[in-house]
């Protein structure tokens, strides 16, 4: 589903952010990407949703090499790769329903499609009751749920999460990660960057550790933050 082969990234200023990355994440798999700040987690995720092209190597997403993907094809890749962030990135002047529908609006979905898909996505994240609320009326955890609903409403095969619990209290973080694993069980491939040791240790999922831009450990069968 996600397949990186011999990938390196050197930023224009000469910073070497990733070197020799080989990583494969299968359909429906849930993997943590862990590492200290600056270890290259965000850079790796950027490659997956084609925010960045690698200096070297191949990146195959759903069977397609995206490194050489022409720019005008990028939007269609993005519809197949949902993304969520630490800061939620909701539109403050739109309510929950509209924030989720926004992802359908911009890809030209019909009204009928919106009325079918938005409630399903909100139900999946457990926010059906709050569809009329605006972001500033929601807790951090609820806002992250809205952003997950928005990322999933186009039914992407892959969901990429960049420190999704970075702004949340521990118990709320736990709920969000539980939600993400539930989504993976439905067949979505999830790659979740985090440096939240407690969560990683608690989940016993696959853990890929980055140090200075290289993978130093890949606990494929499940592990903790820094022990197998």
């Amino acid at each position: 589903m996600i397949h990186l082969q011999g990938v390196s990234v050197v930023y224009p200023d000469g910073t070497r952010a990733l070197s020799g990355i080989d990583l494969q994440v299968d359909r429906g798999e849930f993997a943590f990407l862990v590492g200290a700040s600056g270890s290259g987690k965000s850079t790796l995720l950027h490659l997956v949703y084609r925010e960045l092209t690698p200096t070297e190597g191949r990146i195959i997403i759903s069977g397609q090499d995206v490194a050489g993907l022409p720019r005008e094809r990028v939007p269609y890749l993005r519809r197949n790769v949902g993304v969520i962030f630490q800061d939620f990135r909701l539109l403050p002047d739109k309510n929950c329903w509209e924030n989720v529908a926004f992802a359908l609006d911009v890809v030209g979905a019909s009204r009928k499609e919106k009325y079918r898909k938005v409630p399903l996505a909100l139900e999946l994240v457990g926010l059906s009751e709050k569809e009329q609320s605006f972001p500033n009326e929601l807790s951090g955890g609820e806002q992250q749920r809205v952003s997950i609903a928005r990322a999933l409403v186009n039914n992407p095969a892959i969901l990429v999460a960049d420190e999704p619990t970075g702004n949340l209290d521990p118990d709320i973080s736990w709920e969000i990660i539980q939600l993400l694993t539930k989504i993976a069980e439905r067949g979505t491939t999830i790659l979740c960057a985090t440096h939240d040791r407690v969560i990683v240790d608690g989940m016993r999922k696959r853990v890929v550790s980055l140090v200075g831009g290289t993978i130093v450990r890949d606990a494929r069968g499940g592990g903790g933050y820094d022990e197998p």
Partner: protein
Amino acid sequence: MNLSMVEFLLQQTWQAIRRNGLMSLATSSNMAVALLILSGFFLMTLNLQHMADVEARKANITVDLEEDADAAGIEAELWGDMRVGEIRSRSKEEALEDYAAIMGGGDPESFVEALGENPLPDAIIVSPKDPQDMAAVADVARNIEGIAEVRYREQVTGKLLTLAHGIKIAGVVAAVLMGVATLLIVSTTIRLTIYARRREIRIMQLVGATNSFIRLPFILEGAFHGVMGGAVSTILVLASYSWVHAYVAQHLSFMELVYSSTFAVLFGLGAMVCGILFGVVGSVIGLHSYLREV
């Protein structure tokens, strides 16, 4: 492109225009002023050229013949000059009738009685193909045997054309200046919109909106200012132009302005198209400098 997509794009555009508030108003107004000035130059040039045309059609040379001159021979000789476009002969009786008409429509016979006899000569009226050749043709006529006098009205056509030409150049200069200013203002407004919407644009990119879809509302915003400017300037220009037309018809009846409902409609459409063009190009410039990454 389905209906809800169109609805979404229009809603985005309208929101941006409202959110920009004063800036939107300033942009539309600026567009209106620019089009107003351009319209002014356009109408002046158009009318001067029209008047020059009308004058040119009237322009001719009167060749008075001597008593018992060989009219047919002289006509043939005149036809020998390539620049001659039209020749018509005018007998002394016709000349008298024309004269009587100019003098207030009296009976020509009464003039003959008053003067004893008809003093006017037979004449040939010559029109050159190009009014600019008036003097040259007159010179040719002067050298023909049997001609008493060659007269032509002092050339207004040439002066009108020179004036029209001058105003056209001033108009082009004004068009360039106003055009640049308008493009600058529209592109600045669009940049403000892009700035105000940067979070939204970022999210659109992340959820897979195509570049053209992201750009379209901004293009529409530019076009909106063009339509508004075009409409306002058309209303103002046509209102004042119809006043000028009425004034000219009453007080300066020797002048004839271009004026019809077809003209008004074409003019309005033209102003609108110009406005939309300015607006769209302005947007594209604004988008280009700020949304290169989109």
